[in-house]
């Protein structure tokens, strides 16, 4: 079985082969055996060549959250079609600005076609009585504006799309 994950715009392919208790994992042509065992509800024990890891795992929709050594890895499980788009997107520098939580749109700072610098704020949202400015991770132009002030948006809603293409 091959799984494809996206993490911070990088694509990873994981080849999983099972043989009883032991699984074999292949990432980037590197193979290693993994022993995987549930501890409680969401806590798992992973043993990779004698190295031991306590891992929290939660699957929500297409996201698989992996909690390891104090850090949260939010993998997006993608299909081959998604990958192509994403891969293309990554190459061409297309970035979706998503709402990180249920919130309301306060102000759209950049209009359609407007130039945006890397790290520049593009939209202001409000949640729990606090305003937050969302920034563009790349330099480019606004390709899509999907919301307007006053809109209530869910977590994950794509608010704007920024592209580095000319």
């Amino acid at each position, binding site marked *: *079985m091959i*799984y494809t*994950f996206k*993490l*911070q715009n990088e694509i*990873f392919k*994981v080849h*999983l082969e*099972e043989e009883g208790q032991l*699984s074999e*994992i292949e*990432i980037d042509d*590197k193979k*290693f055996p*993994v022993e*995987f065992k*549930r501890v*409680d*509800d*969401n*806590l*798992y024990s*992973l043993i*990779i060549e004698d*190295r031991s*890891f*306590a*891992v*929290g*795992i*939660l*699957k*929500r929709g297409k996201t*698989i*959250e*992996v*909690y*390891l*050594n*104090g*850090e*949260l*890895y939010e*993998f997006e*499980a993608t299909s081959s079609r998604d990958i192509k788009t994403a891969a293309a997107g990554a190459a061409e520098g297309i970035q979706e600005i998503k709402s*990180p*939580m*249920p919130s309301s749109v306060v102000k759209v700072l950049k209009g359609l076609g407007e130039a945006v610098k890397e790290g520049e704020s593009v939209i202001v949202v409000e*949640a*729990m009585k*606090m305003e*937050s*400015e*969302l920034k563009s991770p790349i330099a480019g132009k606004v390709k899509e504006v999907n919301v307007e002030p006053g809109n209530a948006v869910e*977590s994950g809603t794509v608010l704007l799309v920024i592209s580095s293409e000319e």
Partner: protein
Amino acid sequence: MFEKILVANRGEIAVRIIRACKELRVSTVAVYSDADRSSLHVSMADEAFHIGPPAPGESYLVMEKIIDAAKRSRAEAIHPGYGFLSENAAFAGMCESEGIVFIGPTAQSIRLMGDKITARKIALKAKVPLVPGTDGAVTDVEAGGAAKKIGYPVMIKASAGGGGKGMRLVRKAKEFSAALGMARSEAHGAFGDDSVYIEKYIERPRHIEIQVIGDSHGKVLHLFERECSIQRRHQKVIEEAPSGFISAKTRKQMGEMALRLAKAVKYRGAGTVEFIMDQKENFYFLEMNTRVQVEHPVTEMVTGLDIVKWMIRTAAGQKLPFKQSDIKMNGHSIECRIYAEVPEQNFMPAPGRVEYIRAPSGPGIRNDSSVYSGFEVTPHYDPMISKLIVWAGDRTEAIDKMRAALDEYIVLGVKTNIGFLTRLFKEAEFGRAEIDTGYIERHPELLKAQLADLEPALAAAALGMRNATREVEEPAAQTRSNWKSFARRLAVSRSQAL
């Protein structure tokens, strides 16, 4: 001692107070909003009263509802916790006139310390140092002399000001008059008023506070300091006792100052005198919090005194049975506030359902929390998940213990600041106690997740996906449910729910 106490709060502090009451064999009454029906403080209390919708303004802040619940349950006293009605003089007064003991200082003490100008006057009279500055607006003629007297660097601030407008930092005398002109013109432009005043500028300020406790027989003692210099959004994130910075001499002085202030308002119960301190250990009174603080546990850990229990006992009229010299600090304690928030996005709250939580435990670990797997962090209240507190022999060991504890902490379902805190506790500067209220801003690199264990994480993701897939493919196992196979089914569903 009281027979029954109503706890007018929610979350971890309500749980904390209920635990103290249980140990004192006092019955407890919880109040709860619609959002808190399944909160722990409700089930842990002996009685529970519903007080309205989730919005605090319609429940926890409605004085009449709290008083009504107290009367119906015949509670003799009310513990307000922190936040909500805890520093509301009108509420304390209402309790007093209803014959219910308010567990805290008198309404009068709250009133005096609640008004910033009055509090500054009391401090001035009690010879507690304030940030040096002019007594209100100054003329151009007075300004230069005043700045010189205060000592550079100084801040010129618009009297009508706010939001940084008409504000100028001046480091040298020769830059003063130009800066004054600019500040005045900016102030005029922004507020239509060019009057300004001058204040000492504190570079890399530290936040250090003194815990005090008084009884109703005139005795007030201090329990030394807490340093709370690590802040984000002007809110404390990490607190410790003792401070890793101040000398024994400064500690003594601060304690004396705090007592002087507390005695000036005949303080009863637990309170905190907050100071701002520069890098040369000069300290200046900021304000007094007339309630239990979020960070009270670190003081409990190093002094061995249970502050919440002593609040209750002193409110019941008991005398503090020890004297100042009996109170000693032992070891070092640090508290982290674990929040559902996104450090990368200016620590924006991240409410949601905590699908899974596993808190650390073991020697020297204290986790004050009311959150459990399945708990909903709502947007109505503070998104705090827990206060993780450690105690160890010294500061270095306490930091190492905190690192190990954070490493054990797992929260899934909502984003948290655990990763951020983990990175912070590895910082050498923090280790050397080189901290101030601008520390987090100075260390933006701490905000970014360090996803260094990619291989095991990817392996876990793939194996997790495989388990989830199996579940979708074989849902039949879940319907094979009858009463007799219930236990087995439970086990099956456990091994399938991801």
